[in-house]
């Protein structure tokens, strides 16, 4: 079967991210049941769904901020099996290949913007201070933040802080970027700056998984839309298709609620 699909679609390469049969419960509260997902190289997957659906949990399991109960995660060839104990080395390798951007930025407030972006390069990649700073400045320029390098994050707007966080993650050269509601904590006007940066990133071929409530982004930028509810994926496919003609009643209800807001 898999063989057949590869023949039918000659562009199919090994997916960058594969999540297989992921399950997770907090005590008796089952948060994820049997979630499987695969993200092709260079594609953008948008993930939507009601609050509590488990979107953040899927993302956080992908780089093991949360330990799944069962299932398998493969990112850029680094395979993590929930049943087996993960060695610190493969954990580090997994996290290096997946950059993560949080709703609340999670910058280090006691370091300048430049240090925020450079420190992980020095500690994780073993770069020298000069190498790291050079790369950081390049990324900050790309984010339109070169003049903020010597400021502290608290002196930057929310949109700027989120772009700093994106630069910090990109500096480690990840194969995939995971975004967990990157604009939800921002004013709509400021959120646009961040969405622009993400759009630009997508156009350069970065593989991205984006949990979002921004339907326009999901429709216009994403190649694949995943709808989650009650700990499972209820629908996935082409964004335009799903938004126009949702198959699942739960999806219809969610979209109605979002669009009527």
């Amino acid at each position, binding site marked *: 079967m898999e063989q057949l699909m590869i023949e039918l679609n000659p562009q199919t390469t090994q997916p960058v991210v594969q999540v297989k049969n992921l399950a997770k419960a907090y005590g008796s509260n089952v948060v994820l049941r049997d979630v499987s997902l695969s993200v092709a190289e260079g594609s953008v997957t948008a993930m939507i769904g009601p609050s509590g659906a488990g979107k953040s949990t899927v993302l956080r399991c992908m*780089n093991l*901020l949360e330990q799944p109960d069962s299932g398998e995660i493969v990112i850029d060839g680094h395979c993590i099996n929930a049943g087996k104990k993960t060695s*610190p080395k493969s954990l*580090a390798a997994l*996290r*290096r290949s*997946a*950059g*993560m951007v*949080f709703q*609340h930025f*999670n*910058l*280090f*407030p*006691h370091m300048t913007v430049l240090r925020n972006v450079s*420190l*992980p390069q020095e*500690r*994780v990649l073993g770069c020298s201070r000069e190498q790291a700073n050079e790369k950081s400045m390049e990324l900050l320029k790309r984010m339109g933040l070169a003049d903020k390098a010597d400021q*502290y*994050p*608290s002196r930057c707007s929310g949109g700027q802080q989120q772009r700093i*966080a994106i630069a*910090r*993650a990109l500096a*480690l050269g990840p194969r995939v970027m995971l975004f967990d509601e990157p604009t939800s904590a921002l004013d709509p006007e400021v959120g646009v700056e961040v969405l622009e940066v993400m759009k630009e990133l997508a156009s350069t071929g970065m593989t991205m998984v984006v949990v979002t409530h921004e339907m326009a982004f999901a429709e216009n930028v994403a190649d694949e839309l995943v709808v989650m509810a009650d700990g499972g994926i209820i629908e996935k496919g082409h964004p335009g298709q799903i938004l126009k003609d949702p198959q699942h009643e739960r999806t219809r209800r969610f979209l109605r609620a979002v669009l009527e807001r």
Partner: protein
Amino acid sequence: MNNLVDVAIEYGPTLLGGLKVSLTLTILSLALGLPIGLLFSFGVTAKNKAFRYISVFFVEVGRGAPALVLLQLMYYGLPNANLTLSSMASACLALTWTTAAYSAELIRGGMQSVPSGEIEGSHALGMSYRDCLRFVVIPQGLRIALPSLMGFAVLLFQATSLAYSVAVPELMSQAYSIGSSTFQYLPVFIVAGLLYAAISIPATWLSVGAERLLSRHL
């Protein structure tokens, strides 16, 4: 009033000598106690049982027992266990214990108030647990704890006066011996009190200033 000035002039050098001993005792106790306190701040929540039990024991006893009891224990008690220390050494040991115990709790409180999002952020970046402590948790935790640690240092400085009970020639015991040989207790203790205040009050201002300075970026 004249009396006070006379006493200050005549016994000033002796009292200043005592003040120097008090300050030395404070600085030694802080220099030894704070690093141990940092260690205990991890110990009290450590997974390793031996480390945790030892830390909890020293922190709880150090905070639970009055400094005076610890002082007497080190000076009069330890010789029963065939360990005789000089008065300065035993006072230093006792106050180091007090410092370690109190600072462990203050530092732990500081580190706990570092937002968990930042810790997650560092993990998501692939930084090791050790790097996360070294670059994110400890610097910010100490920064948060610093004003209260400075406040504690002032209290410790005042608590060195208890060392007079184990014959350390610090400010209080100098004042006491001058008083008992001249019967000028009132002016001598006033001068000694002023000397304590001359250190404590500016140090308190300093800790308030430090608090402002350090909360600048937050």
